C-alpha cells in the first residue's frame, strides 16, 4: 500500500507498475524526465517546422527548466516523508536533499544560460535550433549525476552531460577556435572518461559491486591488501579531477572556455563544476569513506597545486575569458579544500562554495558576453577601460562578481572562502589554508585590476568598437539575478546555511 501511494505521485508519462524486483518509483528522477521530454519535443519541432520562431524554442526551454525546478522543490519535501525510500530504481538513484540542493543550483545556472544563449545566438546570427535540446540534455545529465548512487549511473550521467557539451562548445561553425576548443575538449574528455571507467572496473574488482553504499560496506569490512581499492580510488580521482578542472588535469579548460561561445562557457563553467563536485562528494564521502586516510593526501596535494597554479597563471592572461577560465581552475582548488576536510562541516562548506561559485561565474561570463557585443569581440582587458562611464550598470554588476571571485565581503565569495577554510582548520589542514589565503591575495590582484580598469581609466575611442553594449533587457536580467544572489548570500549567508543543514546529509 505504501508503495502504491508513492506511485500515485509519479508523473503520468512514465510506466508505473511493480516488477518482481520491487516497485519502480520514478518520482526522484522526474526532473530529468521533464528535461529530456522537453528536449525531445524541441528536437522534433526544430526538425519538422523549418519556420519555427527562435523565441518559442527559448521559452519552451525556460518552461522545461522551470518545471524541473518546481518538481525539485516538491522533491525537497518528498524525500523527508517517512515512507520515501533512500534510493530508487534498484539502488541506482539516491533520493535525498543533497541531490535536490545541487539540482536547484544547476537548474538556476541553466536558466540564466538559456537567457544568455538566446541573446548570443541572436547577436551572432547563428540561430540553430539544436542549441536548446543540447542544453536541456546537458542539464539533465548534470542533475542526474548529483543523484547517482551507483558508479555506472555516475558514468552514464557524466557522458550525457559531456557529449552535449562537446557539441555546444563547437557550436559556432564560423569560428575555427570554437571547433578547435570542441576537439580538445572532446579528446581530453574521452581520455578522462577512460580513466574513470577503469576506476569503476577496479572498484568492481575490489568489492564485487558498483553501488556506492555497498562499496563502502564491503571496504569497511575488508582486511588485508587493498591494492585494487586503492587503484580504483586513484583512477576515480583522476577522472573527477579532469571534470572539475583540477591541476594537473586542467589543460583543456582555458582553451575550451575561450573557444566556446561565451553563453556556453557560462553554462559549462558553472554547471559542469557543480555537477562533477556533487558526484565527487558522494563517491568519496560515501563509497570511499573507509579509505579516507588514503585519498586525503592526494586530494590535499591536488587542492594545493590547483590553487597555486590556477591563481598564478591567471595573472599572465590578457583575454578576460581565459583569465576567468584560470580563475575557475583556482576555485576548483578552494572547493577541494572543503572536500579534503572530509567532514559534515567540509561538505556543507563545499556546497555553499559551489552555490556561490555558480552564481558568480555564470554572471561574470554573462557580463563578458554582453560586453563582447556580437559574437566574440572586446575580449581583451583594454575593452573594459572606462566601462563605468559607458555603461554604469554592467560595470557595477561585473564589479560585484569580481569582488566575489576575489573573496571580499560583503559578497558570497567571502563567506564561501571563510567556511571552507574554517572546515579545513577544524580538520587540521592549516598548511592548506595558509596556501589558500596566500593564493587568494595573489588572485585579488587580477580581479581588482578589472575593477580599476572599469572605474579609474579612460576609454580610448577607436581602440575597440563599442556600439550597443548589451542594451537588451534580457541580458540585463540575466546578469542582475546572479549579482543579487551573490550579494544576498554574502549579506545573509544564514539563508543558504539553513538549507544546507538539511541538505548536507547524504542518505545511504
Amino acid at each position, binding site marked *: 500500500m505504501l508503495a502504491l501511494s508513492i506511485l500515485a505521485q509519479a508523473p503520468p508519462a512514465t*510506466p*508505473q*507498475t511493480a*516488477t*518482481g524486483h520491487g516497485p*519502480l518509483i520514478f518520482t526522484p528522477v522526474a526532473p530529468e524526465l521533464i528535461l529530456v521530454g522537453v528536449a*525531445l519535443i524541441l*528536437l*522534433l519541432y526544430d*526538425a*519538422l517546422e523549418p519556420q519555427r520562431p527562435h523565441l518559442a524554442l527559448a521559452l519552451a526551454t525556460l518552461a522545461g527548466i522551470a518545471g524541473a525546478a518546481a518538481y525539485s522543490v516538491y522533491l525537497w519535501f518528498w524525500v523527508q516523508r517517512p515512507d520515501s525510500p533512500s534510493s530508487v530504481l534498484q539502488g541506482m538513484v539516491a533520493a535525498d536533499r543533497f541531490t535536490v540542493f545541487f539540482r536547484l543550483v544547476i537548474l538556476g545556472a541553466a536558466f540564466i544560460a538559456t537567457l544568455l544563449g538566446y541573446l548570443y545566438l541572436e547577436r551572432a546570427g547563428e540561430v540553430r535550433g539544436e542549441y536548446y535540446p543540447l542544453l536541456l540534455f546537458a542539464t539533465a545529465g548534470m542533475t542526474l549525476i548529483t543523484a547517482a548512487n551507483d558508479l555506472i549511473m555516475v558514468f552514464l550521467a557524466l557522458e550525457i552531460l559531456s557529449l552535449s557539451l562537446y557539441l555546444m562548445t563547437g557550436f559556432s561553425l564560423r569560428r575555427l577556435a570554437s571547433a578547435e576548443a570542441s576537439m580538445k575538449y572532446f579528446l581530453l574528455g574521452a581520455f578522462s572518461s577512460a580513466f574513470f571507467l577503469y576506476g569503476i572496473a577496479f572498484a568492481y574488482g575490489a568489492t564485487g559491486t558498483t553501488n556506492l553504499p555497498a562499496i563502502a560496506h564491503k571496504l569497511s569490512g575488508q582486511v588485508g591488501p587493498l591494492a585494487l581499492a586503492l587503484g580504483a580510488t586513484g583512477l576515480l580521482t583522476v577522472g573527477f579531477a579532469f571534470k572539475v578542472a583540477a591541476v594537473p588535469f586542467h589543460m583543456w579548460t582555458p582553451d575550451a572556455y575561450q573557444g566556446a561561445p561565451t553563453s556556453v562557457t557560462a553554462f559549462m563553467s558553472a554547471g559542469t563544476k557543480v555537477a562533477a563536485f556533487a558526484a565527487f562528494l558522494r563517491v568519496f564521502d560515501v563509497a570511499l569513506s573507509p579509505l579516507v*586516510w588514503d585519498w586525503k*593526501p592526494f586530494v590535499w596535494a591536488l587542492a594545493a597545486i590547483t590553487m597555486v597554479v590556477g591563481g598564478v597563471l591567471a595573472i599572465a592572461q590578457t583575454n578576460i575569458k581565459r583569465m576567468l577560465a584560470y580563475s575557475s581552475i583556482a576555485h576548483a582548488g578552494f572547493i577541494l579544500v572543503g572536500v579534503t576536510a572530509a567532514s559534515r562541516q567540509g561538505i556543507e562548506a563545499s556546497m555553499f562554495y559551489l552555490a556561490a561559485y555558480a552564481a558568480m561565474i555564470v554572471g561574470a561570463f554573462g557580463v563578458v558576453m554582453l560586453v563582447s557585443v556580437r559574437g566574440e569581440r572586446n575580449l581583451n582587458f583594454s575593452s573594459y577601460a572606462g566601462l563605468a562611464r559607458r555603461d554604469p550598470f554592467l560595470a557595477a554588476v561585473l564589479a560585484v562578481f569580481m569582488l566575489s571571485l576575489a573573496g571580499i565581503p560583503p559578497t558570497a565569495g567571502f563567506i564561501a572562502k571563510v567556511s571552507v577554510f574554517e572546515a579545513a582548520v577544524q580538520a587540521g589542514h592549516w598548511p592548506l589554508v595558509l596556501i589558500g589565503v596566500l593564493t587568494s591575495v595573489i588572485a585579488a590582484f587580477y580581479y581588482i585590476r578589472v575593477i580599476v580598469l572599469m572605474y579609474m581609466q579612460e576609454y580610448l575611442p577607436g581602440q575597440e568598437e563599442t556600439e550597443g553594449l548589451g542594451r537588451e533587457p534580457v541580458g540585463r536580467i540575466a546578469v542582475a539575478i546572479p549579482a543579487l544572489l551573490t550579494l544576498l548570500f554574502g549579506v545573509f549567508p544564514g539563508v543558504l546555511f539553513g538549507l544546507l543543514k538539511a541538505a548536507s546529509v547524504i542518505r545511504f
Partner: protein
Amino acid sequence: MAESFYQSYGVVVALLIGGFGLVAVAFTAARLIAPRRQTAEKLMTYECGIDPVGEGWSQSQIRYYIYAFLFVIFDVESVFLFPWANIFVRLGYQAVVEMAIFVFVLALGLLYAYKKKVLQWV
C-alpha cells in the same frame, strides 16, 4: 599513527624510482652501445611490412562517418533487444512499455536525421 601509515607507501616510491631508473638506464645503454647504419629501407615508415603509399595526410569521406554513427546506434539497440526478448515474458507488460519508449526515442532520432537530410547520399 598517521606517520607510520604513510611510511608504508615508501615501497611504492622506491618502486617508482626503480622503474623509471631501469627504463632510463636501458635506453641510455642502447643509445651508447648499439651501432647505427641508416639505409633508405630502414628509414621508411613501417606499415605492416608493406611499402607505404602516398602521404601521411589524406582526406577521408566524412559522409561515411554519419552512416557508421547511425549503424552503431541501431547496432547497440539490437544488443539491448536480444536479452530483453529472452526474458520480457517474465518481467510483465511494463518491460514492453519500457522497451517501446526506448525504441521510440531512437526512432525520433532517426526521424530527426531524415528531416535534417543526412540520410541522402550526396
